[in-house]
Every structure is written in C-alpha cells, then in structure tokens.
C-alpha cells in the first residue's frame, strides 16, 4: 500500500506547495485566495497521509468552508466600493503587489536566510529524533478522550476565546452608527 501513500503524498504536497507559491506570486488577490484554498486542500491531503483524518476533515470544514469564505467576503468588502481610487481591471484597489526591485531583493535575501535557518533546524531535529512510525488507528475517539480529560481546560477556554472573537469582531465589523445621519 505504500504506493498509494506515495502517490497521494506527492499529489497533496504538489497541491500544497504549488498553492502556497501561487499565493506568494499571484497578482490578483482573489486569485491568491483561491490558491490558498488549493494549498489548504493539499495540506488536508497531507494530514490524511499522516493518518490525522479528523484534523484533515476539520481543515476542510473550518478553512475551506469558513475562513476562505470569510476572506473572500472581506476582499469583496474592501476591494469594491472605492471608485475614486485607481482601480485595477477587477475593480480592486491597485496596490503594488510585489513591489519594486528593492522588495524583490529583500524577499530573496529573506528567503535564503529562512532556508538557511530551516536547514539548520532540520539538521538538528532529524539527527536527534529516531524515526519511529506509530500505529495507524482511529484518531477521533482519541482526540475526544484527550479533549475531555487532559485538555478539558483548553477545551472550555477555547469556547471563551471564540466568544471573545465573536463579540469583538461583531463590534468591530458593525457598520457605523453614524450620528450625523440620525441628527
């Protein structure tokens, strides 16, 4: 069955990496968002190859169903209505997406630096850890048991976090109650 694993891993990794690179280099923001969608789906596939099916499904439900839609909405909300600005072909505000030469140089230097750091870290981590594959089993029940035993506090507090996020975001995003119009 290793064959399937290889195939699926290759496809998913290709999707994830390609999506991520496209996010970095796409000119259009909506396109970047769609590429992000692909990248996320690819990461979900990678989770599947790692046996984390619940995390994969959560990735699909939360990211694809929620965050991407939210991002799209936000892009539409901020990209559309300013007609007096210079608009691109898609009505979006034309911002220097990748910028000028300086930005490019800076980005490349940064990327090289990051790669150096990551190689360093990888070297350390790989040499330190013996590769042991754990057994392949159902994760939902284990996660559930973990969530109500070891991580019960995190579980409950996360609800409070989400409540805070909801209330805060609702307050911030609420349209102006402009007092001028009322008066």
């Amino acid at each position, binding site marked *: *069955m290793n*064959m*399937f694993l290889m195939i699926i891993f290759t496809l998913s990794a290709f999707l994830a990496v390609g999506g991520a690179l496209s996010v970095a280099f796409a000119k*259009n923001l*909506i*396109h970047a968002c*769609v590429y992000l*969608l692909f990248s996320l789906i690819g990461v*979900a596939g990678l989770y599947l190859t790692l046996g984390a*099916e*619940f995390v*994969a*499904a*959560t*990735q*699909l*439900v939360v990211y*694809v*169903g*929620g965050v*991407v*839609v939210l991002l*799209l*909405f936000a892009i*539409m909300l901020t990209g559309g209505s300013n007609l007096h600005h210079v608009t691109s072909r*898609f009505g979006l505000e034309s911002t220097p997406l990748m910028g000028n030469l300086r930005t490019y140089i800076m980005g490349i230097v940064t990327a090289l630096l990051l790669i150096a750091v990551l190689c360093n870290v990888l070297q350390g981590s790989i040499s330190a850890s013996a590769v042991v594959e754990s057994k392949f089993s*159902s*994760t*939902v*029940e284990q996660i559930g048991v973990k969530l109500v035993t070891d991580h019960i506090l995190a579980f409950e507090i996360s609800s409070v976090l989400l409540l805070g996020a909801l209330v805060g975001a609702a307050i911030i995003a609420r349209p102006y109650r402009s007092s001028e119009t009322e008066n």
Partner: protein
Amino acid sequence: MNETIVSYLGETLGYSFNWAGTLAIFFIASLVLASIMALIGGLGTYAERKISADIQMRYGPNRVGPYGILQFLADGVKMLLKEDCIPRDSDRFIFKLSPMLCLVGVLASLAVLPTSSGFILANLNVGIFYLLGATSVVGVGIFLGGYSSNSKWAMLGGMRGAAQIISYEVPVTLTILSIVLIAGGLSMNTLVGGQGAFPNDWYIFHNPFSFIGFFVYFIGSLAETNRAPFDIPEAESELVSGYHTEFSGMRFAFFALSEYIEVFVLCAIAAALFLGGYNIPFGLQEHGLLGQLLQLAVFFTKSFFLYYVVIWIRWTLPRMRVDHLMILCWKYLTPIALLNLVGTAVWMYCFDGKSFYMILKQLFVASGQ
C-alpha cells in the same frame, strides 16, 4: 461489518488483492458510483419536470423515449452543443474554475455515502464530518461563480448563495451533532448500524429531540442546496438566474448536475441518519450478495422518497424573502438545534441512552409482571 468494497470482495472471493487490483476495483467502484449519481442527477431534472407537470396537471416531457424518459439525454446533448460564452469583463480563471469546484466537492462527498453495509467506498472514521467538509466546497464554488461573471445579477446571487449556504450549515451541523451523540461515533457505519430496520429503532423516533431534529436537518439541507422554497440565489423572477446567469453550455451543466447530486446526497444522508439507512429486518443482511442488494434497494427507496418530497415541496411552497430566510435560520432553526443538542445530551444522560420505544417497552413489561 465490512470496511470497504475491497475487503468485502476479498472476503467473498477468498482472494487478496495487490495494490493494482485494489486500485482497479476502487476505480471501477468509484466510476460506477459517480456514473449512477450522474444518472440520478440527470434523471432528477426529468423527475422534477414530470412531477411538477403532475402537480400542475400538465403532461411534462413526453416526446423523447417512453414517457419522455430520455429527455435528460437530449438535454445533455444540447448542453454539449451549446457555445461556450465567457463574458468579456469576467475573471476568466475563476470563471472556469468555479463549476469544477462545485462538481468536485459534490462528487468527493460520495465517498462516504452508506449505500449498504458492504458497498461503502470509504468507511472513514470521520465519515459524516468529512461529508460536511466536502460539501462546504460547493459554497465556495457558488460564490466564486457569482463573483467571476462580473454581472450584477450573478454577483447578488453568489453572495446570497454563499451567505445562505454557510448560514444553514450551522443548524445542520448542530443537528448532526445530536445524532452523533446518540450513535456514539462519526463513521457512517456506526451511525447507520446503531439503528434498526423498523421505525421504532430509527433515530428519528429515538427521542423527541431527534424527531424535531429531523425536520431541522431537512429544512437546513433544502436551504443548503438552494432548493425551493429557499432558492433565493437563483430566483428566476428576481435575479434572472442567480449565480449561473452567465454560464452556458457544459459549465452550466456542471452547476446543475452538482446541485441535483447534492440534493440526492443530502436526502440520502437524511435517510441514513434518521430513517434507518440501509438496515433490513430478519437478518437478511447475512445472505451475501443478496443481502447487500436488498440493503441497496432499501436505502435507495428511502432516499428517493425524500427526493420526491423535496421536489414536491418545491412545487408547493412559494419562495421565501431573503430576510425571512435569514431570520428562519438564525432565530428559529439555530436555537432549536442548540436546544436539541442539549436536550439529546441530557436525554442520553438521564435515560442511559435508551430510546423512547425502549423506555415504553420497559414500562409495559414492568407493569405487566
């Protein structure tokens, strides 16, 4: 319980497959399922027209084939022959992508459709949750379809569609949570296997909350698939044709196909979660292939019945206004679904997971003695 088709066939034939064989069997099975679904999607259009004609005392399609049953093939051919128009100002990349997203999302969700105890393509441990994730891709597809056309009608339809789909996903998810609570697992075989063949063992009659939950789920799934009376995103009389106004030819066909298949999938899930799924009585499921076929028949009968109800509703009820739609979702269905969840949890705790029927039975048995 057989995990997948391959293991089922392996057990039946006494032969262990290598990876190529497995791949081949899976490929064939997936192809068969996808084709059946495409057929159902196509026949759905026919059924829709025929039933609507029946309700409105018309004839409906009756020229192509006996009773016009080949009408959908003719439609398909017509779609193939249509010119592919892409608006000049549109976002061409996304314009081409969005129908694909819809169809891929719907077809990917077929993997966990519990057609029978043996013929389930992928008995995932997270079955129902995976299904939710896969179908949520459709919402993105619809929004992108509406966005990419750069047409005001399509944009409105896409926005409304996305908002409606994500809104109605909340009560649907909560209701599914309450069913998972009863069954104690996320895999489709656990969910269906916990029920029995007869109505008293179905989860819809398990407790009062799940009875309400069925209707919440059904309404929510109607709205999630943009069916009437919730077809705001494609309301012909307001928005021309909604998010697929600018689509023509095969691209339109993909939208339509994905919609009809999704309706069927959600009906099938309703049948599986609430109405007993593929369960058949008297131990018939033990009889090898015959048992599997009987299970298939039972499952598809229930699903088709619900499918009929969906079409019936479409031609019976008037369309809702968009604000009523949102109020129905957020102010009625969501609180009810939350209440159902809490109520089911408390019921499970109080009555030790017994169903209503079992409690009644115990009462009568106890009083008879």
